[in-house]
């Protein structure tokens, strides 16, 4: 399968196979007018299988969302057809308005304006807890 190279934009590479659609949704890529390609189950020497997302526009990236969904990914930033920057992402320490607290006893359940903020409390098990009520996020 051939997908055209992009001229100006971002390639999100080394996505764990199966996580591509979740990233696409959480990054709100469905709202973009530019070309966006999701390539699933690409053969990878390192990972066996991987997903790739190519975005043909220079848009700001939410590294927290990417790190939360899949901390192993790499981002290649392309300008005029050339790789100008490459970076990896870690598991973010806090997530703001990425997850929703579902505890009906939490203050966020009655105050609509409040940000839903989750803190990383166990990096090994990737456990996030609501900063207000400490309820574990459903990941």
């Amino acid at each position, binding site marked *: 399968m051939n997908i055209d190279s992009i001229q100006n934009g971002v390639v999100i590479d080394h996505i764990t196979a199966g996580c591509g659609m979740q990233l696409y949704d959480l990054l709100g890529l469905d709202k973009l007018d530019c070309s966006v390609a999701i390539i699933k189950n690409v053969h990878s020497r390192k990972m066996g299988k991987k997903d790739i997302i190519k975005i043909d526009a220079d848009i700001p990236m939410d590294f927290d969302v990417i790190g939360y969904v899949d901390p192993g990914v790499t981002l290649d930033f392309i300008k005029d057809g050339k790789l100008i920057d490459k970076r990896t992402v870690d598991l973010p320490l806090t997530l703001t308005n990425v997850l929703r607290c579902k505890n009906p006893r939490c*203050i966020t359940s009655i*105050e609509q304006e409040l940000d839903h903020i989750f803190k990383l409390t166990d990096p090994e098990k990737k456990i996030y807890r609501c900063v*207000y009520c*400490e309820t*574990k996020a459903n990941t």
Partner: protein
Amino acid sequence: MKSLINILDLSVEEIDELIAKANDIIANPDKYREACRYKKLATLFYEPSTRTRLSFEAAMLELGGSVLGFSEANSSSAAKGESVADTARTVSCYADIIAMRHPKEGAPLVAARSASIPVINAGDGGHNHPTQTLTDLLTIYREKGRFNNLTLGFCGDLKFGRTVHSLISAMSRYQGIKFVLISPHELKLPSYVKKDAIKEKGIPYVQTTDLEEVMPDLDILYMTRVQRERFFNEEDYLRLKDSYILDMPKLANAKADLSIMHPLPRVNEISTAVDDDPRACYFRQALNGKYIRMALILKLLEEAGR
């Protein structure tokens, strides 16, 4: 701006400092009569409370300060839909320190993030109640003279009982502690509390449904009420509410220097016949609540430079 939202916001050293200050207040009350002169405590209570609100108010009055606030959400702008953050910002204009109780978990944290004065969490739903924990710690210290080498029994609702979770977390920081967890299966200590505060610290513990069996081992017996307001289902509440009732026959094998604690209010889980036993210290505990809140108000106002 330092606030007290969770008991874990305080280091062991800070807790020791508060206990020492409370003991000094008890020993030398005259020294503190004017300590908060011209200072105002705002008590923002969005749900009913007797001990906590009155002990905060009594604490501030005994320090020579004054008190303003509300004791139910309906008598505040919350009834008009005002957010906790806006209320906290507004009250910061009128008072020097806030004590807040709210039925929703995390509300005092929201207030602390918006207020320009210290906020004390006076209970947020079934979540945190740090001044109750400080009260319990002062009581343990005054009854036993130490925090180390104690066997603490917790009996009743260990699932929803926030005072139990906080006290277990606080006591797990001391040496030679053993926990005895007595509850019906449905009201067992949540596994995350057990894991974080007991198992990961290698603290010995026993889990049982039989109070009398473990009674002889206990230095402290912390009784709790099965709280109707924490149940979504009335049937479950009715089935579990009378699981443990402490009476004199059950104390037959208890140590002579056992300390019986209860955060109060009590319904029927401790027979009134126990009240006259010198081992019953729950009313002394309620009194300690005032002294530790005096110490806390002093500390937070001092740190805030007010």
